[in-house]
């Protein structure tokens, strides 16, 4: 094929079957003889379990087995936590191997959040299991609950875990504490901002599900589950929860209906369906409900931040300080503590060159659902902080917020740039992205737009947010320093079949990112073959080479290079074999249009298929060359990668109702060279709407008992089609030096600045009311109250 496959916006091969509803998700799996598991979940935020009576439930129709925490002792170990805040003292619930623990599969002795599984019922049908779960009687002694970190850290606060004094998982710090204090003390201007980046719920459309199966003849377990990390789940479940040999557990991720960070975690249902499948001798299936998801799948954000930014009157930022209280929820989720500390804290300087910065995070346990990643995790919270602060600083010194950004941005000649907080930015021109976004937005004409909107009863606001987001998790030694217990490399296997078709098997698992298309494009480009001849397999641990999972926008930027390196090992071998057959130097051999040939010598050409067959037969290979093509490589990147960009939101606020309408959204992103623009634009568009949701409508609300008041989609709002306009996108493509594709993370980067851009726009629209900051979500009521509070206090002052 002559056209360039890499970089082409090919229509994803996955889509037709998805459009026809034919791909199989976990909940669609119906193994013969399947029985169904349902949970009884805690109805109290904090309570001692004095007793559990299953007598009535056990006698109900179809009930096969009921287990409580006591039944699991000696069978299932507690779930482990594998990301400890690095470099500081930390405290966790126990795990028998001395690892940090993350709670037991079923509550033992005490419940610590509403939604925590207390008992599991297996019955012939799902409805029977649910009926029986409701008939279990639990004798609770209700304890006082703590909902916020401030409550949890207060003297005399109720204590959640015996091994965690004061409910404090860790006080984590980074940056230059003394230098920052000194710079703040000496500064011409210091602006303070206290904000609450509130709890959100990821809300993929597919709730989690798991099917466990056990083969008594081989002693092998199989878990089909909504997992974005099947290999990691295999490792953690076999070695650290079930205590069985690694090679006795197979994990399969069927089609996954979105994740956004939530489906890489260990959850109680995973070991339970396996344990119960073995006990009962039948496949056990569990499907969560939306309400179950809302009160048990990891939630996101939730930092209470107290920040100061300092600078000169001519707009130079000199210092930044943040004290953050992070709400980890009742237990550490699998990687939650790292998300709340390093991913947030090291990112607070954003795209700016700030000489003195310091961040401290109090990672705290409370009686709420465990915290984990939400698209853009940590980095979105940090970006919201710095981008709000920059706007407040600009307003205080009376300077255009775009100009303040220009004066402080990392310049391209400073790359690679040490942000002094632990990240070494890789490449790119942050200022160019900002200028492009300003130009697209018509930023210079914003006052005229504001006047025109005002004539219609609308307050128009323009908000800027730039961002740089650490992505592409790896290299392994680097993440070890951050306290992550695991590796972060990826792998790929390529087999070239005798007939010339290719099978690529990748270690990563997609959750809706068209991996089968994009990864095939890399191979087709290297081989010069039709993209349709490259089959892509994944997500079954018995077939796929090892991988660490899809998180932190690493599938393409860490898994992609593994594929490219494997492909180049294949072409290197095929080139040597062809050079041997042609009697030429291997540098003369090229791959083009499905052929392996020597330029300018029509006699010396073979089809890719002929070469594949020649290597399969092995009749005439260079001395020492092994026959056949079956290559597996691993790739551990040199460092993280850092996508960046500049976004501008334009909102109109109704001056009577406070209703906010997002009328324009401009986004310039640089995620490195793009493998498939149709796919990447889709990721960016979806990412933006995720951030818009947090800005305008999404919040998980708890009452003082720990009850989640927003436990379904009728009370937890996520954006609908009419809530957003068409976006205006542009891109830059600066390669990262840290992988051979030059690829940077694309799956979540565009979420990172969005909430800040929208909030900055709303605050800009309300500037005339003296509104300085409003915590998200910016609902009509919240905005109306802010407008009217500001109006009232102003008139009182007069």
């Amino acid at each position, binding site marked *: 094929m002559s056209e360039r496959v890499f970089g082409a916006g090919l229509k994803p091969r996955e889509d037709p079957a998805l459009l026809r509803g034919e791909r199989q998700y976990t909940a669609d799996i119906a193994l013969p003889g399947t029985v169904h598991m349902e949970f009884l979940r805690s109805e109290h935020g904090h309570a001692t379990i004095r007793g559990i009576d299953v007598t009535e439930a056990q006698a109900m129709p179809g009930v096969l087995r009921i287990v409580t925490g006591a039944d699991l002792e000696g069978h299932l170990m507690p779930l482990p936590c594998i990301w400890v805040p690095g470099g500081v003292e930390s405290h966790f619930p126990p795990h028998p191997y001395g690892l940090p623990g993350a709670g037991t599969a079923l509550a033992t002795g005490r419940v610590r959040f509403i939604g925590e599984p207390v008992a599991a019922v297996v019955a012939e049908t799902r409805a029977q299991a649910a009926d029986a779960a409701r008939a279990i009687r639990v004798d609770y002694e209700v304890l006082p609950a703590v909902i916020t970190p401030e409550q949890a850290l207060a003297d005399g606060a109720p204590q959640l875990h015996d091994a965690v004094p004061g409910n404090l998982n860790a006080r984590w710090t980074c940056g230059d504490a003394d230098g920052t204090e000194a710079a703040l003390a000496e500064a011409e201007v210091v602006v303070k901002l206290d904000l609450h980046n509130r709890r959100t719920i990821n809300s993929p459309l597919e709730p989690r599900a798991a099917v466990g199966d056990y083969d008594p003849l081989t002693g092998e377990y199989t878990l089909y589950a909504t997992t974005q990390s099947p290999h990691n789940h295999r490792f953690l479940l076999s070695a650290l929860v079930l205590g069985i040999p690694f090679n006795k557990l197979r994990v399969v991720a069927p089609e996954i209906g979105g994740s956004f960070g939530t489906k890489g975690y260990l959850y109680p249902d995973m070991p339970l369906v396996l344990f119960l499948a073995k006990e009962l001798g039948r496949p056990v299936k569990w499907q969560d409900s939306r309400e179950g998801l809302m009160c048990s799948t990891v939630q996101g954000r939730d930092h209470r931040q107290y920040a100061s930014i300092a600078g000169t009157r001519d707009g130079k930022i000199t210092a930044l300080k943040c004290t953050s209280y992070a709400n980890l929820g009742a237990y550490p989720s699998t990687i939650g503590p790292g998300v709340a500390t390093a991913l947030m804290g090291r990112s607070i300087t954003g795209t700016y060159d700030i000489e003195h910065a310091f961040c401290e995070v109090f990672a705290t346990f409370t009686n709420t659902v465990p915290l984990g990643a939400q698209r853009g995790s940590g980095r979105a919270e940090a970006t919201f902080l710095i981008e709000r602060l920059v706007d407040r600083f600009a307003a205080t010194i009376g300077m255009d917020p775009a100009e303040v950004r220009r004066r402080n941005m990392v310049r391209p000649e400073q790359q690679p740039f040490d942000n002094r907080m632990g990240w070494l930015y890789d490449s790119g021109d942050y200022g160019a992205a900002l200028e492009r976004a300003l130009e697209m937005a018509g930023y210079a004409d914003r006052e005229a737009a504001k006047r025109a909107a005002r004539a219609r009863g609308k307050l128009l606001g323009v908000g800027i947010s730039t961002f740089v987001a650490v992505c592409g998790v790896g290299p392994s030694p680097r993440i070890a320093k951050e306290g992550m217990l695991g590796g972060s490399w990826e792998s790929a296997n390529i087999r070239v079949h005798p007939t010339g078709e290719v099978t690529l098997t990748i270690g990563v698992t997609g959750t809706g990112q068209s991996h089968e298309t994009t990864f095939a494009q890399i191979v087709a480009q290297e081989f010069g073959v039709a993209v349709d001849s490259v089959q892509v397999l994944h997500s079954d641990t018995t077939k796929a080479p090892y991988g660490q999972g899809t998180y932190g926008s690493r599938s393409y930027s860490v898994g992609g290079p593994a594929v490219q390196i494997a492909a180049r090992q294949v072409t290197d071998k095929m080139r040597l074999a062809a050079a041997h057959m042609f009697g030429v130097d291997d540098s003369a051999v090229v791959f083009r249009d499905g052929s392996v040939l020597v330029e300018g010598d029509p006699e010396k050409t073979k089809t890719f298929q002929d070469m594949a067959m020649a290597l399969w037969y092995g009749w005439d290979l260079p001395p020492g060359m092994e026959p056949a093509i079956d290559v597996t490589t691993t790739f551990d990147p040199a460092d993280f990668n850092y996508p960046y960009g500049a976004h501008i939101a334009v909102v109109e606020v109704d001056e009577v109702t406070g209703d906010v309408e997002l009328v324009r959204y401009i986004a310039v992103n640089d995620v490195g060279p793009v493998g498939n623009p149709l796919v990447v634009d889709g990721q960016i568009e979806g990412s*933006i709407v995720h951030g818009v949701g947090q800005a305008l409508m999404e919040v998980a609300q708890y009452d003082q008992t720990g009850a989640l008041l927003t436990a379904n989609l009728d009370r937890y709002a996520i954006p609908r089609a009419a809530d957003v306009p068409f976006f205006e996108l542009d891109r830059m493509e600066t390669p990262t030096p840290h992988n051979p594709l030059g690829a940077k993370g694309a799956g979540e980067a565009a979420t990172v600045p969005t909430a800040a851009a929208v909030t900055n726009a709303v605050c800009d629209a309300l500037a005339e009311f003296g509104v300085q900051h409003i915590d998200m979500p910016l609902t009509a009521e919240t905005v109306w109250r802010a407008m009217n509070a500001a109006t009232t206090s102003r008139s009182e002052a007069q």
Partner: protein
Amino acid sequence: MLWEVRMRISLSVNNRSVESTVEPRTLLVDLIRDDLKLTGTKVGCDTGQCGTCTVLLDGRAVKSCSMLAVQAEGTRVTTIEGANAETGLTDLQEALWAEHGVQCGYCTPGMVLALQDLLATNKAPTEQEIRCGLAGNLCRCTGYQSVVRATLALTGQNGGRNDV
């Protein structure tokens, strides 16, 4: 006991007559997914918000999680399996594919049926009409951009694609 009550129902699903015995509380979506094994219809919530369970009932889009199976007595139900062309894609599905109006695919069968309903009553909906027509269908992946673009393109209107 309440759970021992069973009711007989008959209805048409994808142009085939279906006779079934169900509990009164059985939801239409559970009949479709569990009894008829038509798993293209999904369950994303329990409150009629997400639209992944959308089917056509006598030609109009309804949420099959918010109806009892017994309420479908005597009706004509079309699921995604019944809306599909024999092979390949319908024009609507082709248009969605061209714009990559599907990512994880979980909302997609419901989206397709909701759009089919919209286009049956409004041959050339405006952008705003499409957005409002999808009010009952949540998508967490696409941000709706490609879905709306595809629908505009299908009806011969120049969508909001901002060429990069």
